[in-house]
């Protein structure tokens, strides 16, 4: 039943290691399978991996280096001495814990709201028949890609007029109007076999009950994907919080990062320390739930 998200499952196994596809690769291994080929491919893969990891590695190095060392003329790839002074400094000078808390609170609210709204709408588009469904679906589809920059001036005024400018809600409510999850949800619900829902109907269950007691319990993988992607999106969001937040105490981590960079004498080591703090939760989530992330990326087209 959980297999309804079709390709991504196949893809996910490949992503998480060599388990299932090995069989297939072995057969094409006959095509290429000479040892020399493997050596060359391994070398290329290692070079690519180094390039991909280097920026993150460098963030860690600068975050733990003595102040100013990164821009000294000597070329070094390793701190002369590992130090936590940058972290101490950044916590001393800025309300980092508050910013972190703001990111968590805003992220959780946006995620909760968005996932509930997306599940309901996705189910309606996939499984319910009603007048105007196709028109509404097209409208949702059309607006999915519109960037906030296209309407930010009007959105800013709207949020001001609603009296939620400079508050959590000013970030949360527009953030929850995102539609990409609706498509993921719709695709998933279309994949649920008709017989299951028909059986519940024959048992006399109404649509709401079917949704809550039959469909939702089958949708755990979908819900996991939606939660992770939405949380990541709001955690990393920049443009809208930049416009909607004016109070230092309400900043999320990305806005806090910008605040550090805009200081008159920016301390790059401290900036990297904060960057590391802001990036770490998503890296941990990604490494723990890689399968779901990859499914979501592959299915929704959202990065």
């Amino acid at each position: 039943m959980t297999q309804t998200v079709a390709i991504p499952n196949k893809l996910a196994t490949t992503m998480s290691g060599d388990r299932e596809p090995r069989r297939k690769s072995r057969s094409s291994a006959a095509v290429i399978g000479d040892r020399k080929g493997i050596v060359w491919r391994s070398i290329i893969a290692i070079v690519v991996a180094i390039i991909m990891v280097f920026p993150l590695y460098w963030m860690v190095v600068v975050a733990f280096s003595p102040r100013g060392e990164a821009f000294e003329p000597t070329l070094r790839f390793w701190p002369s001495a590992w130090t936590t002074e940058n972290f101490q400094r950044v916590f001393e000078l800025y309300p980092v814990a508050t910013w972190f808390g703001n990111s968590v609170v805003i992220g959780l609210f946006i995620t909760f709201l968005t996932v509930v709204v997306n599940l309901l709408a996705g189910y309606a588009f996939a499984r319910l028949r009603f007048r105007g469904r196709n028109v509404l679906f097209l409208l949702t589809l059309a607006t999915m890609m519109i960037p906030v920059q296209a309407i930010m001036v009007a959105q800013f005024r709207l949020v001001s007029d609603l009296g939620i400018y400079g508050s959590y809600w000013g970030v949360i409510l527009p953030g929850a109007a995102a539609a990409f999850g609706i498509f993921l949800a719709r695709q998933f619900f279309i994949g649920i076999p008709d017989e299951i829902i028909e059986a519940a109907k024959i048992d006399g269950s109404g649509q709401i009950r079917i949704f809550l007691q039959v469909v939702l319990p089958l949708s755990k993988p979908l819900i996991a994907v939606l939660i992770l992607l939405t949380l990541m999106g709001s955690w990393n969001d920049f443009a809208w919080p930049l416009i909607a937040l004016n109070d230092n105490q309400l900043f999320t981590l990305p806005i806090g990062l910008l605040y550090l960079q805009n200081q008159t004498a920016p301390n790059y080591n401290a900036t990297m320390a904060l960057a590391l703090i802001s990036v770490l939760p998503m890296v941990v989530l990604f490494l723990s739930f890689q399968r779901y992330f990859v499914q979501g990326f592959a299915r929704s087209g959202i990065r």
Partner: protein
Amino acid sequence: MTSLTARGRDSAPLSPRPRAARRASRLRESLIGWGFLAPNLTLMAIFLFLPILWALQLSFQDSRGFGSPEWVGLKNYAKLVGDPVFWQSFGNTIVFTILTVPITMVGGLCLAVLMNSVLPARGVFRTVIVLPMVISGVASGMIAGIIFYQSNGIINKVLSAVGLYPVAWQSDGLPALISVVIVAIWLRIGFNMIIYLAGLQGIEPQLYEAARIDGASRWQQLRSITVPLVGPSTFFLLIMNVIASFQVFDLIFVMTGGGPGNSTSVLVTYAYRNGFQIREQGYGAAIGIVILIITLLFTFVQWKTSRTRDQVG
């Protein structure tokens, strides 16, 4: 499927239920449908459709922050046509798109082919390539700012060490743009790889075996089997990458701020600058409408062709 059978049942002439009851049940179903959609519709109406209409209205007004706005008709759009910075931003957006999209896609395909082959520790390599996707644009931009730092940043130090000249990543327009392009590719290549991997796994291995028996080289196999058969993925990625490139904001905002001069200013950053820094909100809204129209065009193309992609999926 469902809608077909359902319609068949509804139109059956021998339906035992009286017409009124049937209409009532259909109305009930419609109500439930709208009920499920209500939260989504409410949010979208207030925070999406309303701002779109409002932006349209603002784009016909002259409103510089305070004071009552003045209706100026098409003046903002006329200004846009004659504004060299707007055209420069437009041009930069296109150059940025032309530089990022092909490299990301070709790179993504190559990595997918590599990662689909026999390779030790394949899972680890894949994880590493996808990892930048979860790093925020702001953090990426700041890390890149340090790596590309002009005076004694790591890249320039390495260039000097191997006997090359350091590059003016911040004070020269083209290198500044290229530094943003490189970071954008770093962020996005994993996504391209994922989509291509899904495409590759739909190709029958027998095809390659047959080609090998016919004596096709690996390059010939890539050209005549792999590339044509991942065509739908390619098209999907083309649209998604173009949209993403057209909307690049965080990286430019953090890395260059549109500078030096306006040499890395793009449409979205220029709209922001007018709306929130110069505070010519009517003009900023007009640029926003241009972005909106371009986005809708690409979305339309994507939608028209999404069927082919679904077949691949």
